[in-house]
């Protein structure tokens, strides 16, 4: 659906401590308010101090998005009142943000980046007795308060909802390659979107977590706006909230007037000069970015651009996995084929990431080796990969447990001979010219051996055997 879309993305940066204090950012298993201190709780008398690594991550993002870096940065206070705000102002960047005027290339098109800046995350609210509009009261956990965020704002260059999702996927992979965020951590990427349809009013949709929800949220919104336009109803310029439960956007009843944030420069912090020497060091140690990696995989491993693109797009984890497998196995094309066509499909079906699955280069290569050794057929391997992807268990062991190993040729001949002996009518039919009778025998053999033989091999043996019976018969005559 066509629309004019601009995105505002908040990325939780991968640092050990928070943006302005030494509290840990790792709160996944923590009790509420366990990772707090007077600074991130906004106690009177406390003062912030800037985390150097957060700034460096910001610089990496700015460089990867081809932005102009500011010569110096400052932080500002953005004032508004809300229960998740420890100081009722957020320390962010307004006067002198980190970077501006960049772009990300998506399918040959440049999506322009207006701005990249750093700011702190507010606390986490738990709504009790309802949702955001109907709760009786809230519970506040400040573990999240003060975690560093990079805010990335695009120009309204995105043309439709699908492009929005593709943009976010590419951005996510880029940030993953930079090592500045954890793509698997819950809520590490949040999106607000500005949508307008057919030149109508611009509506802001907030609180879309994870880019999978983005296409849904934006599609809903675009449909909503288009329906209203068709009915001749004006679309109100407002802020709406995305409810992932219902897949819809809801209007937040509130003040009509636009919030005035009353920005001042943060007087507890000082200017940070982005010295050329410092920036150059960061640039020199920038990791390989997705587009570069895709090209290199094609060149280095001789795989197709399509395959390389899929591998890279599946995340940094997957790229590294691929290259390690190639190193262990050697045949890069075979690895790519099996990875792209079968492994990824299984993982997607199971809803697992590579890390979660337990799949490792060593065991994956083992699977491919089993095929080469003739221990299992390709068909068996395609079936086996589903079980393998679920737990990463050694394929060799799986084959043993499930009795999937191909029967040795000699033993297979014995079984075929048994089946032929048991079915004289079929033999007669075949020799009489009914080719289909051989298929019947193949089926009988397969029923007996199941996955332990390749159908083509069985057919070959049966036909050989039948032909030799025929020859003998004619010789006998």
């Amino acid at each position, binding site marked *: 659906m066509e629309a004019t879309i601009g995105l505002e993305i908040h990325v939780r940066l991968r*640092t*050990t*401590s928070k943006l302005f204090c*030494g*509290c*840990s950012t790792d709160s996944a298993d923590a*009790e*509420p*308010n366990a990772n*707090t*201190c*007077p600074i991130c*709780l906004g106690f009177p008398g406390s003062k912030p*101090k*800037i*985390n*150097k*690594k*957060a*700034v460096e991550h910001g610089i990496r993002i700015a460089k990867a998005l081809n932005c102009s870096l500011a010569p*110096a940065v*400052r932080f500002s206070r953005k004032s508004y*009142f809300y*229960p998740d705000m420890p100081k009722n102002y957020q320390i962010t960047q307004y006067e002198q943000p980190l970077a501006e005027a960049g772009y990300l290339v998506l399918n040959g098109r440049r999506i322009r980046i207006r701005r990249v800046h750093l700011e702190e995350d507010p606390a986490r*609210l*738990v*709504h009790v007795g309802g949702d*955001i*509009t*109907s*709760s*009786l*009261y*809230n*519970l*506040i*956990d*400040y573990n999240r308060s003060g975690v560093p965020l990079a805010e990335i704002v695009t120009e309204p260059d995105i043309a439709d909802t699908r492009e929005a999702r593709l943009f976010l996927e590419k951005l996510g992979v880029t940030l993953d390659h930079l090592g500045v965020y954890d793509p698997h951590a819950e809520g590490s990427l949040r999106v607000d979107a500005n949508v307008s349809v057919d030149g109508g009013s611009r509506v802001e949709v907030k609180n879309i977590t994870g880019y999978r929800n983005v296409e849904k949220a934006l599609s809903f919104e675009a449909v909503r706006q288009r329906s209203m336009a068709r009915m001749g109803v004006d679309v109100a310029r407002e802020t709406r909230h995305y409810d992932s439960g219902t897949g819809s956007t809801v209007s937040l*009843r*509130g003040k009509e007037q636009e919030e*005035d944030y*009353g920005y001042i*420069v943060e*007087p507890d*912090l*000082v*200017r*940070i*000069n982005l010295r050329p020497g410092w920036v150059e060091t960061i640039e020199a140690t920038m990791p390989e970015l997705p587009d570069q990696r895709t090209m290199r995989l094609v060149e280095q491993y001789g795989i197709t651009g399509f395959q390389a693109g899929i591998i890279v797009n599946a995340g940094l984890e997957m790229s590294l996995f691929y290259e390690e497998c190639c190193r262990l196995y050697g045949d890069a094309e075979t690895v790519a084929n099996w990875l792209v066509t079968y492994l990824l499909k299984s993982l997607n079906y199971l809803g697992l990431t590579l890390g979660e699955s337990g799949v490792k280069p060593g065991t994956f290569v083992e699977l491919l080796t089993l095929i080469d050794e003739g221990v299992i057929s390709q068909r068996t391997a395609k079936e086996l990969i589903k079980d393998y992807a679920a737990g990463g268990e050694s394929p060799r062991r799986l084959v043993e447990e499930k009795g999937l190993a191909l029967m040795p040729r000699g033993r297979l001949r014995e079984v075929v001979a048994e089946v032929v002996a048991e079915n004289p009518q079929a033999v007669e039919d075949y020799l009489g010219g009914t080719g289909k009778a051989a298929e019947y025998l193949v089926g009988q053999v397969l029923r007996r051996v199941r996955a332990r033989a390749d159908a083509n091999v069985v057919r070959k043996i049966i036909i050989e055997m039948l032909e030799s019976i025929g020859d003998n018969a004619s010789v006998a005559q």
Partner: protein
Amino acid sequence: MSDAEIDRGMVRRVAEAAHLSLTDEELERYERQLKVILEAFRELDEVDTQGVEPSYHPVELEGVLRDDEVSHWSWDPLANSAHREDGYFRGPRIQ
């Protein structure tokens, strides 16, 4: 400097933004007092500040950063709050 005079409506709007609910008496008194104060501030219009940079601090300070390390505070964050539940702070509803 703005010619927009501060009137009662403006005082109420600004107070609301700052989450202060004023009585009528306060509104009336503040309107009167703030008008006088803002009038006095108008003298800054006389100062030529063309090309002058703002001084966010009175002394030149730059480049204070901390290393990305965890330092743990051993304390009870909820000790000063009357509104708490199961380790959380309790807060008022949104709407």
